[in-house]
């Protein structure tokens, strides 16, 4: 009975087949970053244990993308501070304890460090993922993107913390499902949650980990990638055979869009192979 319960709960996140009892997945990791048309790079990212097979197996793979908030005080300082804090939290993580709880805690720790440094005037979005024993754990804040590409489907795993998104959810909860009513909402894309925010009270994380399958691709990216490329374009890139090709293809696609106000763009791509 408990087994069925778990599967039913997982089904709420993704339609999953039962966990395969095979040997552990291995991961191939790639990253890309560009400054776009901005004067400076305010995105930060990091990957841990990608080159050390033993550490990857015993401690898990960690990766994160943080988009420092432009138009506010020192976005790069915010995103770098967050990354440094997250790296430390991952190093200190107790693998026998609850990983989801510790991941959420690491987000709040990073947030308080950014807040202490910048005083609430600025901050950073967050996508952080731990891949441990064939499972994906994530924690996200703000409007960056976490995608899972599986069976030719691109699934966005995280929920955005923007004014528009919050309003839409409120409306749906009130029974109003008209999606167009907020199309002219002023400051629709303004963040309602970010690391460094005074009184941050929301993160988006998975309590039950996602079992990863052979062939799955996970992509964490800033809105300079996720907000520029279409679903079809991202899928096309992720269908390539090798992560490095995927990354260079994504990068070329962002550049080819030639947006006059292209934001900083950053992505980490992880390919699961059994």
């Amino acid at each position, binding site marked *: 009975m408990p087994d069925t319960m778990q599967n039913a709960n997982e089904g709420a996140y993704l339609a999953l087949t039962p966990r395969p009892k095979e040997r552990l997945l291995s991961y191939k990791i790639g*990253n890309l970053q560009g400054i776009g048309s901005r004067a400076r790079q305010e995105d930060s990212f*990091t*990957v841990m244990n990608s080159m050390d097979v033993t550490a990857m197996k015993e401690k898990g793979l960690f990766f994160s993308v943080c988009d420092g908030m432009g138009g506010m005080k020192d976005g790069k300082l915010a995103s770098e501070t967050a990354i440094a804090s997250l790296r430390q939290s991952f190093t200190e993580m107790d693998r026998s304890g609850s990983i989801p709880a510790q991941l959420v805690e690491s987000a709040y720790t990073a947030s308080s460090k950014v807040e202490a440094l910048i005083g609430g005037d600025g901050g950073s979005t967050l996508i952080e993922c731990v891949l441990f024993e064939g499972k994906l754990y994530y924690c996200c804040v703000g409007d960056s993107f976490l995608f899972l590409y599986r069976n030719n489907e691109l699934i966005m795993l995280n929920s955005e913390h923007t004014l528009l998104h919050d309003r839409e959810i409120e409306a749906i909860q009130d029974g109003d499902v008209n999606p167009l009513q907020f199309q002219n909402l002023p400051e629709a894309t*303004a*963040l309602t949650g970010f690391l460094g925010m005074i009184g941050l009270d929301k993160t988006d994380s998975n309590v039950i980990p996602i079992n990863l399958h052979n062939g799955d691709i996970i992509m964490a990216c800033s809105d300079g990638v996720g907000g520029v490329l279409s679903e079809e374009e991202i899928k096309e890139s992720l269908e390539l055979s090798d992560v490095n090709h995927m990354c260079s293809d994504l990068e070329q696609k962002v*550049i080819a869009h030639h947006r006059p106000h*292209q934001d900083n763009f950053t992505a980490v791509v992880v390919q699961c192979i059994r």
Partner: protein
Amino acid sequence: MALTECANGHLYDSAQYASCPYCNGGVNRVEFASPDSGIGKTVGASSAVNSAANVGEIGATVAPAGYNAQAKASAPEEEDIGKTVAVMKKDTGIEPVVGWIVCIQGAEKGKDYKILGKNNTIGRGEGNDIVIKNDSTISRQSHARIAYDVKHNTFHLIPGEGTNGLYLNDEPVYVPTPIAAFDLIEMGESKFLFIPFCGDKFNWQNGLQ
């Protein structure tokens, strides 16, 4: 392809780059919308500032207006200094110029480059503090560095990853070496004169002496 994970967790091809290209703010600077930005533009100079002012607000990641009025007011800063936050910026809130180098021979002859109050990397790639784009004999990342010592108002020339030589007044430089006004710095096929702004007569902490 020799994939390497640097100390900050960035993956890069160490067969292609001597040091991590992501650690100083990203390798790929593609000109998206500044038709006036010619080749040989120095990051940190006016054209980069202009593009920041033009695009700073549009599409940027921001908090809602009501969140913090002060934050909105202090929106985009005037200089392209986001790569690292130097001591001087923390102390004074600005990142002022402390000196210059001026190209007197080579591909960018006639151009000046700002030295900020920190350890300034010099290279051909956009990730450097001082970018000398048009001399292909200068290393992409950190050919050399010029460090400003905030406490003593002194400057040092420090060798970096450059494979095509670094000379100070025609002598090769293998260790950090103090530099003074009108010293001749030679990198690749270019020559530069060093002009200090901060020193005995003026510095940003104590003003004019």
